[in-house]
């Protein structure tokens, strides 16, 4: 107990004495944590968005206008039995117009009303469990005939269309964004690790004689190491706390007001602020504590 008190007071003594390197280390941690604190939610948001898009990918089976009710019902139940199909929704011609007019606004909506007849065919909207199974489901609906031509399972099927092309485009874009962000994050992490390590190394190097003397008067490695590690934890904690404070300020003043209007920003809040804080603070602490612990090894060989 008294030993813990001694180690902590030693750590604070060291921090007080080497104020400049300590502040440098703290600032480094602040900057890194800040950048990570922005990058991580953005990464998470883009991942969520991509997932969102993938979830929306379904299959539309368009029917001929002349399809009879009985035929439609029969096809509906047949479609539901196809593997990977999670849900089958019939969209009548009238519903199709409603959906469309709900999606488009202004002039386009008016011009839709000006049409005398409904140009939209009835359709089935299928939900697929995974976008990877789109092709299999499509194949199940339009079977390949003996002559090699594609034959729908029912004569009332006009066309099977999926949003695969759109989806793959979106996946590609979000994938690229994600890759760039991850590479950036890794580079940043590496740079800050080296920076923090270097800062700590400098402050320990300045005290290497002291460490040597401690060894020579019979201090064990851990006796010497603990104050340094506690020092690292204090530096990490302070840096992370400052960064979290800035992040919180940014969240309250910039992100929160925007999230009412913007869809993308809204998904930022999918990353809870508390877990983010916990991750940032603990990683900052671990990095700096490990940094001092490892750097010290070199000087403990006496």
């Amino acid at each position, binding site marked *: 107990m008294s030993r813990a008190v001694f180690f902590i007071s030693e750590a604070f003594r060291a921090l007080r004495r080497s104020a400049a390197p300590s502040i440098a280390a703290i600032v480094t941690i602040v900057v890194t944590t800040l950048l990570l604190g922005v990058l991580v939610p953005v990464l998470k948001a883009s991942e969520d968005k991509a997932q969102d898009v993938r979830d929306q990918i379904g299959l539309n089976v368009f029917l001929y206008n002349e399809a009879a009710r009985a035929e439609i019902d029969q096809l509906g139940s047949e479609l539901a039995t196809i593997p990977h199909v999670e849900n089958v929704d019939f969209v009548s011609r009238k519903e199709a117009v409603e959906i469309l007019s709900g999606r488009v606004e202004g002039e386009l909506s008016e011009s839709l009303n000006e049409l005398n007849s409904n140009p939209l065919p009835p359709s089935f909207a299928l939900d697929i469990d995974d976008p990877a199974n789109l092709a299999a489901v499509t194949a199940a609906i339009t079977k390949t005939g003996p002559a090699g031509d594609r034959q729908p399972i029912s004569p009332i099927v006009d066309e099977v269309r999926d949003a695969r092309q759109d989806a793959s485009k979106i996946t590609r874009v979000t994938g690229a964004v994600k890759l760039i962000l991850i590479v950036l994050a890794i580079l940043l992490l590496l740079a800050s690790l080296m920076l923090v390590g270097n800062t700590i190394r400098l402050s320990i190097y300045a005290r290497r004689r002291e460490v040597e003397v401690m060894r020579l008067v*019979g201090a064990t490695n851990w006796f010497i190491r603990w104050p340094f590690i506690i020092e690292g934890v204090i530096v990490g904690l302070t840096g992370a706390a400052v960064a979290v404070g800035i992040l919180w300020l940014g969240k309250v003043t910039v992100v929160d007001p925007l999230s009412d209007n913007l869809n993308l920003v809204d998904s930022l809040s999918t990353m809870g602020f508390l877990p983010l804080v916990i991750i940032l603070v603990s990683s900052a602490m671990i990095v700096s504590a490990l940094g001092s612990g490892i750097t010290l090894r070199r000087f403990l060989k006496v």
Partner: protein
Amino acid sequence: MALTRSRSNRGRARGHSDAPSRYEKRTGAPAPKPPIVALKDATVVYPGGHVALERVTLEVTRGEFAFVVGPTGCGKSTLIKLLIREIEPASGEVEIAGHDINEMPHSRVPKLRRRVGTVFQDFKLLPNRTVYDNVAYALQVIGESRSEIRRKTPEIIRLVGLQSKIHSYPDQLSGGEQQRVSIARAFVNHPPLLLADEPTGNLDPETSIGIMQLLYRINRTGTTVLVVTHDREMVDKMRRRVIALEDGRLVRDEVSGGYHDESTREFAARLHREMEIEPGSSDVNDILDW
């Protein structure tokens, strides 16, 4: 018989290694304690090929006060480094209290160093700590309780005569004062063995006598003291065992004079007389009054 011999020959217990078994056989009594320091054919080679010590064999018995002398570069400081395992021998053995210190695992080295107080030539004080904190560090290292530290630290600082400088930093002290802080730190947890590397180097004769007096007093509490020095005059006056090194080889090992039982005061008076210095100007004199 064997007992008498060993008593009368304190400090020259040669051929000790095979003695205990014969001793035990003859007397049936437990073997005497092994010498506190024993070097057997110890050779030290520094990186670059310089041979600092060459096949040095010597023993120091418990309670002895011995000098290691020789010109600069003869291997005196190397000997000290060897005894606290700051360096390891290329060959041969180094034993402290019967344990080969180069056999012990690295993790045991701190324990060894706590049992061997060392006064370094360059003092090796922690620059950012006060006199008090420097001395207290040696106690903190061994896990002494805070109340004990608060009791022992001022006591030993008073013993070395630095009570007025207790809150000074090393760079505010003179060489002699730093030397005394170093001695205080080395001795604060009463190690059985005290090594002093040039404790009077660069000090004026009066302060040197003060330091010697201090070491003598420490020796009289039962601590074995091994002093490395090139101060021949001081050594001659002290009339203690002298181990002389030259070019890394042991060239002389003898006990001169027989002043083993004089008090610290008599000791100081004799030193003053023989070195022709007027006593009284040393502040150490007042503290060591017993």
